[in-house]
Each structure stands twice: as structure tokens, then as C-alpha cells.
């Protein structure tokens, strides 16, 4: 009972921090940062979902998460430019991401199954670098234009921020996935088996569950999430360059995952939105501008994101929605 109260108190602390941030933004007249935070942070949140999934199931920080999306994006581009209808090209991109996830698990993760987690971390970084190199091989490091699935750019306008159909698709997808995956890991046998395999692999094998098959399933699912993030979020910007998912999204997604709690799927979404809000606030708040009280040269948004991360981890080491082990 005491543990439950403690757990709820922790959750309340996390929610309190988010609420305080929202109030502070309204007081500072920067409420539009909330909209921009949701708008841009949903993409970080979707990549973060894949990171959390792998971490929950195997305790690995997956540095290849971004490039699962990168491969999906390149495949979408190649198929669509060959005249394949957009919907089929999207499916093709997602299949390519899942194949990369499968190959990563079979060729890289499985042989290192018993190795220290840090070895796997480095191995996934190697997968990311290889995937980027292959993209540059195909695209000569040049950017490419990429079409949107939905051309309407002003479906909804909130605080003068126009939200496109493509972005609504992204926000809807990440919200649904966060809830569905949350339920999957707490309400289904397969989800519970994955959690069990990550915590007690030997015991899981003893009750007749193949830990290796679960690992394959998890990596393919994580690759699908990375692929979804890329094929939905990137076309909204109209173009992409090789490695964009790693250079532009991986670090914010890691930050989002840690902010939300590395084991919380809804937390990944909340963390993503928080990163987006902080980046937006730091860009436009007058105190960070030329002559402001906190006129930080260089990159105030990056600095502020990491200050927020530090504060959250000091107050609540398990993240906003994570559970202490």
C-alpha cells in the first residue's frame, strides 16, 4: 500500500512538473510554444517509443533507431519516384524498416546476446553508421524532395499555428501507439512475456517461451515505429537528406525517452512534446534574445533542453512517468 502511494506520489510529481511548465508558459505569454511543442515533439515521441520498446525488452540503448526510419524514408522515395502509388510506397518503406530491424537482430544483436549491454549499444551505433553510409552511397549525400501523403497544410489553426493533415496523422499515430503499446505491455500475454524475458530470461525460457523469438519480434516492432516516424513526419518538411533521422531526431528522441522515463511508453510521447516546447520557448523567449537577461550565444535551445533534463532527473530520476525499479 505504501509502495502504491509512493508510486502515485511520483506520478503526481511528474504531472506537477508538466503542469508548472504549462502555467509558466502562459504567464510568460509563450503559450504558442505549447502548440509548437506538440506539433514538432510528436515526431520525437514516435522515435522515442521505439527506443523505449527496445530498452524495456532488452535494456539496450538503440542508436540505430533513427536509421530504421532513414531506410524507410529512402525506400518510400525510391518507390514513389518509380511511379508506385504513395500508399504502397509507404508500406514498402515500412517493410524495408522492418527488414532492417530483423537483420539487425539476427546479425548483430543475437550473436551479442550474452555480451554486456554497452557492447550492444556500440553495435547499434555501427548499424546506424552503416545505414547512413548506404544512403549516401545511393544519394551522394544530396537532399531529395519528398511528397506528402496529405497536401492540406491548414486543416486546423491553433494560436496562429497551422496544423497540416500530415501532422495530424502523426500526432494521432503517436497517441494511439503510446496507448496501445502501453496496454500491450500490461494487458497481453505477449507483452508481459517480453517484459518477463527482459527481467528474467532464464525463467522465461523455463516456462517454454523463446526469448530469442521475442527479441526478434521486439526489434521488428521497434523498426516499424522508427519507420512510421520517418514516413509520416519527414514528408511534412518537404525534403530529406541521408542520415537526417539520426542527426535531427535521435538525440531529441533519447532526451524525450529519458524525460518520460525509459520504461514508459506514454512517457515517451510526453517527453517528446516537452523537448519540442523547450526548443520553441528557448528560440523565441525574449530573455534568450539579443540583449535579454539570458542571452546565451550559440544554442540556447539545446542548452535549455539539457538543463530541463538535468532538473527532471535530479527531482525524479526515473523520469516523469517512469517507475523506479
Amino acid at each position, binding site marked *: 500500500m505504501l509502495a502504491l502511494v509512493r508510486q502515485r506520489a511520483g506520478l503526481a510529481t511528474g504531472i506537477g512538473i508538466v503542469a508548472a511548465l504549462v502555467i509558466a508558459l502562459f504567464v510568460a505569454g509563450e503559450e*504558442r*510554444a505549447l502548440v*509548437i*511543442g506538440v*506539433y*514538432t*515533439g510528436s*515526431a520525437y515521441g514516435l522515435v522515442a517509443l521505439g527506443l523505449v520498446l527496445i530498452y524495456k525488452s532488452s535494456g539496450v540503448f538503440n542508436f540505430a533507431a533513427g536509421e530504421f526510419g532513414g531506410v524507410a524514408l529512402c525506400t518510400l522515395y525510391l518507390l514513389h519516384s518509380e511511379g508506385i502509388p504513395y500508399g504502397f510506397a509507404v508500406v514498402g518503406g515500412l517493410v524495408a524498416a522492418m527488414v532492417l530491424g530483423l537483420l539487425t537482430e539476427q546479425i548483430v544483436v543475437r550473436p551479442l546476446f550474452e555480451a554486456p549491454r554497452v557492447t550492444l549499444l556500440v553495435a547499434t551505433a555501427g548499424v546506424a553508421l552503416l545505414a547512413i553510409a548506404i544512403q*549516401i552511397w545511393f544519394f*551522394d*549525400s*544530396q*537532399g*531529395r*524532395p519528398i511528397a506528402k501523403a496529405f497536401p492540406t*497544410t*491548414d486543416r486546423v489553426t491553433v494560436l*496562429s*499555428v*497551422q496544423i*497540416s493533415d500530415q501532422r495530424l496523422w502523426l500526432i494521432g499515430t503517436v497517441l494511439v501507439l503510446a496507448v496501445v503499446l502501453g496496454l500491450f505491455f500490461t494487458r497481453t500475454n505477449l507483452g508481459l512475456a517480453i517484459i518477463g524475458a527482459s527481467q528474467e530470461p532464464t525463467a522465461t525460457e523455463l516456462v517454454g517461451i523463446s526469448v530469442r523469438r521475442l527479441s526478434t519480434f521486439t526489434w521488428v516492432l521497434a523498426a516499424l515505429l522508427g519507420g512510421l516516424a520517418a514516413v509520416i513526419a519527414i514528408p*511534412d*518538411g*518537404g*525534403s530529406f*537528406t541521408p542520415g537526417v533521422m539520426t*542527426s*535531427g531526431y535521435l538525440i*531529441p528522441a533519447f532526451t524525450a525517452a529519458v524525460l518520460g522515463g525509459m520504461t514508459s511508453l506514454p512517457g515517451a510521447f510526453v517527453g517528446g512534446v516537452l*523537448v*519540442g*516546447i523547450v*526548443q*520553441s520557448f*528557448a*528560440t*523565441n523567449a525574449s530573455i534568450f*534574445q*539579443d540583449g535579454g537577461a539570458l542571452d546565451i*550565444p*550559440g*544554442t*540556447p*535551445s*539545446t542548452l535549455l533542453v539539457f538543463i530541463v533534463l538535468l532538473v527532471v532527473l535530479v527531482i525524479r530520476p526515473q523520469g516523469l512517468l517512469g517507475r523506479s525499479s
Partner: protein
Amino acid sequence: MTLRRPLLLLVALTLVAAACGQKAGVAGTGGEGGGDATAPVVTAGPPVTAPSVGTTPPDGSTPPGTGSTAPTGSGPASTEPQVPATTAPPAAVYEPGDDDTVGVTDDEIVIGIHAPVTGASPIPQTSFDIGKDIYWQFLAENAPDQLFGRAVRVVFHDDEFNPQRAVQVCREMVEEDGAFLLVGAGGADQITACAQYADEQGIPYLSACVNQEDLADLSTYFATSLTYAEQAPLMLDQVAELGVTEIGLVVSDTPSFNDAFEAIRAAAEEAGITIAYDTRINKTAAEAEQLSVVQELKDAGVEVVILLSSPLVFIGLANQGVNQGFTPTWLGPGVTSGLNAVTNFGCPGVDTGLFFNPTPQLDVIDELDPDFRAAYEQFGGGDPADDIGLGLWALNKALGLMLAQTGEELGRAAFMNTLVSTAGFDNGIYSPLGFTADDHFGGTGAHLLDANCEQKMYTTAAQFVEVG
């Protein structure tokens, strides 16, 4: 002879002063360049023009905009070095050091070039690989004696849009490849870092337009086009031409752009144009930052935004603008934002882009230098001529003039003495370049490029736009 020489000197100094020393709206130009405040007065020779080594323009006309010093491109290949006979001996501003002739042999000169092929600019590596040598191959074929029997070998490295990496590759090019001089093809921070390294080593370093603040004190640095700050009056003139009185100003938050940021603000004030919103944007701005800036610009209601950033940030801002129903004219200086590669994947957002560039675009190059496409056909291996190749061609052509003017006894000190003692170098593509011992920022004008998303390329909106 006694009267002729001082007269020549007077004319040459007047030309240099007109070209370099009186650039309106430029803070801090001159005075500290050259590295040696007590440098002796230098004797300036006449301007050096591009020698005619190849084909004739289709109509035999004189290329526009280049005045009397433009190449005429007539006649067969020249076999004689095109060094003016009346050139005065360069004064000894620079003294030869121990490594003065590194990278120079009887039959070869090694030049090192670095550029951000990856990281911030959508620059195709293959364009660099092909384009870096075309001019030198063309010269070796058509005027083998212009560089006194020496061929030029170019080594190229990607600096990855990272100043530390830039210094590393510059060091490699000097120590391992034996580069005689170094060239920065783009990226202010990388150019600044590498130029500082080159200055420490006494190596000549040339680059296209960047910042002045950190480069003015470097004795071995030479700018081959207008700096960003020097282009401020050009941009404000363009704003006035567009009939706009309120603008936005977005500049990447790097110390290298501090002087340009202030110069643009000063030029706007002088021109009576209000800056309704200005900001320093993260050098690698994320989507949230880009969207936030676009929202502020939209709120300010500006129709023109002066932008100084990497092409990727430009494309991000422009496409965020389209998503938000905000399509201002994006006006700026810059080498890389005016590349066709930007329109290839930045359209439709970048359709309203206008950029000042040291070189014009491909649509007018046949008028200015018909040798360019001919050389690509001859040495390009079947690849079509592109604007990256044009940039490299123009740069190498200017370098060719400088090397030829230095003479057969080529060394780093002699080369730099030649730069500061020659009235000007006109390759017919750049606005004429002119350096003095006190002013190493040699650019005098630029070309204005206009993005065209229908053709997915930039076109030349104005040629040889001069400062002042």
C-alpha cells in the same frame, strides 16, 4: 621611363582604392588585413585579366559587365604566359620561410581545397570530384606554358561542416599532400578555423565571401569575393528595389556572423528600412526552432527576410513557411544557398529565394566564358556542367591568374607579394578582385541569383552588381 612608372603607380593605386578601400556600409574594412601593420608601401602593377586560352564566344562579342578588362576569348590557344611585361617587382611584404616552396616542383603545383560536402550543405560529392580539376586540365591542354610548364594537382577534402574537422583536413592537405596553398570553398566557421591554421603556418589561404571579424588580422588570408558584411548594402538596395520598408533578419548564431549581423542592421538603418523582427538562429536549428522563427516572422508581417544561414536551415525555414502560409522573399548572401542543389530538393519553399553569389548561374556563363562548357565536354567524362563546377572553374581561373602573375620563381611569399602588389585580377566571371597589403578582402561585386522552382534551378537576375 622615369615619368611612366610613377604615373602607372598612381593609376594602379587609384584603381585599387576605388575597388577595395571605399566600400559603403562596411564596418572595419581594411586597415588591419595583411597582418603586418608596418608593411611597406607596395608597388601595384596593372590589373591582370584572364588570358584567352580556348574557344571564342559564339557571336564573338565581348562578355558583358566586365568592362575593358574582360577576356575576349579570341584566337587560338596561347602558349605564352600572360604576365604583363610592365609588372613592377612585388615589394617584400612577405619574406620566404623554410617551407616557402612546399607543394611546388618544376612540373607540379599542389592546391588543397576543403568544403562542407556533408553536414549542412546539399553539395554532391561527384560534382566536386569532377569540377576541381577541369580548369587545370583545360589549361594544361590549351596553354601548357601559362604556369611555366607546371601542372596543378588539386587535393580535396570534406570538412563535414565542422571547424575542428576543417583544421584536421587542412593539416592533412599541408603535411601529407604537400599543398602549396589552401582554399576554403564554403562554410564560415570552417573557413575561419582553417584560415587561422594557415596563418600560423604561413600558408596562403583563399576563400569566397565570409566574415571579416576573425579574418582581418590574418596575414595569409585572402577573400576572393565580397564578405557577408560587405554585401549588406547590396541586400538593402535590393530590399529598396522590391519596394519594401519592413524586413525580417535571421542570422545563424555563430560568432563568425557577428560582423555581418551588425553590418546588415547598420545598412538597414542607413537606408531607412525597419527591421521588424531579428533573431540569431541555431546553426543547426531543429524543426521546433525553425517553426518558432517562422511564426515570429509571420506575426511581424514582413515580406522580405534577409537570411544568413546554412542551406539546410534555409530550406527548413522556407518549407515551414509554406506549411504556415508564409512565403516571403528570402534574400541573402552566400555561396551554398544559391546552388541548384538547393532548388532540387528545397522547392517549392525556396522559390522566393534571392541570393548574391560570386559567380553567376549557368544561364549566362556562355556569354561570360564560353570555355567553361567546352572544357566540361572535353574533360567532364560525360557529366554535364553544373554550378558547383562553375564555382570551382571560376576559383581556379582566378588562381591561375595569380599563379601566372607570380612568375616562374613560385613560392608562398612571392605568391602573396604578388597578390598585394597587383592592381587586380579579372577572370571575367567574378567581379574583379583587388588586394592590397592592408586589405585582403578582394571582392568588388557579386551576381544576384533568383530561385526558379519551375525549372528547379537558379537563374541570374543581375550580373556584376557592384558595391556603392
